[in-house]
């Protein structure tokens, strides 16, 4: 999947989860601060990304993903490995 398509999918997922408009979200914006995602919503987001994009975030880094860019980087790395 190309990065643009992945980004669009992520924005849609974030919109579903937060109920907020994510179209103006910048790649480096802190999702917790901008969308008010709490830690539980963060886990739900990661679970949603894993399922929808068939990727797997490393367990030891589950707490590190706070921006769209970080999520996209891991998705790209996972895709490269497979």
């Amino acid at each position, binding site marked *: 999947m190309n990065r643009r398509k992945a980004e669009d999918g992520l924005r849609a997922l974030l919109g579903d989860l937060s109920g907020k408009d994510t179209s103006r979200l910048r790649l480096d914006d802190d999702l917790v601060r901008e969308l*008010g995602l709490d830690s*539980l919503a963060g886990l739900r987001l990661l679970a949603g990304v894993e399922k929808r994009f068939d990727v797997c975030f490393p367990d030891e880094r*589950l707490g590190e993903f706070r921006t769209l860019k970080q999520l996209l980087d891991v998705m790209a790395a996972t895709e490269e490995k497979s």
Partner: protein
Amino acid sequence: MRIGLIAMSGVRVRTPELAELGVTLPQFVNRGKVIASLPSLGLLTVAGLTPDDIDIAYREVADVDPKADLEVFDLVGISSYSAQIDEAYALADRYRAAGVPVVLGGLHVSLMPDEAASHADSVVLYGAEGAWPRLLQDFRGGRLQPRYEGLRAGVFEDAHYSRPRFDLLRGRPYNRITVQTSRGCPLNCGFCAASLRITSSFQQKSVEKAVSEIRAALDVTDHPFFELADDNTFINKRWGKEFLRAIIPLGINWFTETDISVAEDEELLDLLAESGCRQVLIGLESPDGADLAGVDPGDWKRRHSDRYLEGIRRIQSRGVSVNGCFILGLDGHTKEIFTHLKEFIDRTGLLEVQITVLTPFPGTPLYERMRREGVLLQERYWDRCTLFDVNYKPKGMTVEELEQGTRWLFSEIYNEREYTRRKRCYMEIVKKRL
């Protein structure tokens, strides 16, 4: 007139070894920190019951600097928990020495009013409804009474109800905002020192009142996460479903405390998920029914303990995580409980776990029983009512065994590796639901 309402709710742990663990295992005191960072709904309610012509200053104090200058008020109201009550008394004494009249209220004061009275011009017992408006009237007339008793029933009826002043929170960085939909819990566990101690029976707000409070709180915060400050929100399942349907359009995320019976109602579970419930905290207390005998007068928890595993699975399958609470040092617990509980937690798939030590809070049935049995370690130990410090001789082990076993279990449960494992377990459950 200017009234200062001061909430004192810092996190406290007295045993040095435990305090050290709290630093190295941050999750150990996480829930305590969340609670300490919540606004004081009791004082916001007091503010709501105050006539508009009186200026209210709402303050939260985690740690009092005894040398700092006192903010000047015409009257001060202070509320605190047992663990910090001596600090609250010290602050009250300073204000009184400075000529400022002091009113003390809250759960501890309601349960120990005679003790509190020696540090206050007036004490308010039970809820502020039915007491605070009279107190203010008397204060204005120069005839403040030493004691006022608030209502224990009918507290949410129109004649007594006033919406908490959420506007006083505007501009403050809260992670969570509290709203109360009910007071009390019919299970009436002997150790419980929550709002059931200030009510004569279960008190529930109308759905309209509860929703209107959430709407008011929404006005003062950008990213609200609501914590329902209830003892047990879904006692009345029909009310619960009506409430959940009403908050779906608000698009909020929220947390509450309830019991395992929510897992038995599929419609309620679906509504919990749909309405944005992110976590329910459930007092499971102990893995085995035998240890739960007598915990509540109706033995409700003992009778429902065989449903824990399936109940947790059903709730979490909706994407609503469960914060399972366990108490160490119950009468039936021996030193085997620590490894047994660790194994049980591993099997549950719980995302979050809250482990505390049985604590005889003053004024509770548990406290009265332990006092009669002569097992309390000290006569007055309020500063150690932290939920982590041991204050009595347990029946099935020594004090040292309970302390050491607790520390061992904290290290096993609250380390990063275990929390990561629980997070992954929760994510896999959520994925099945998506």
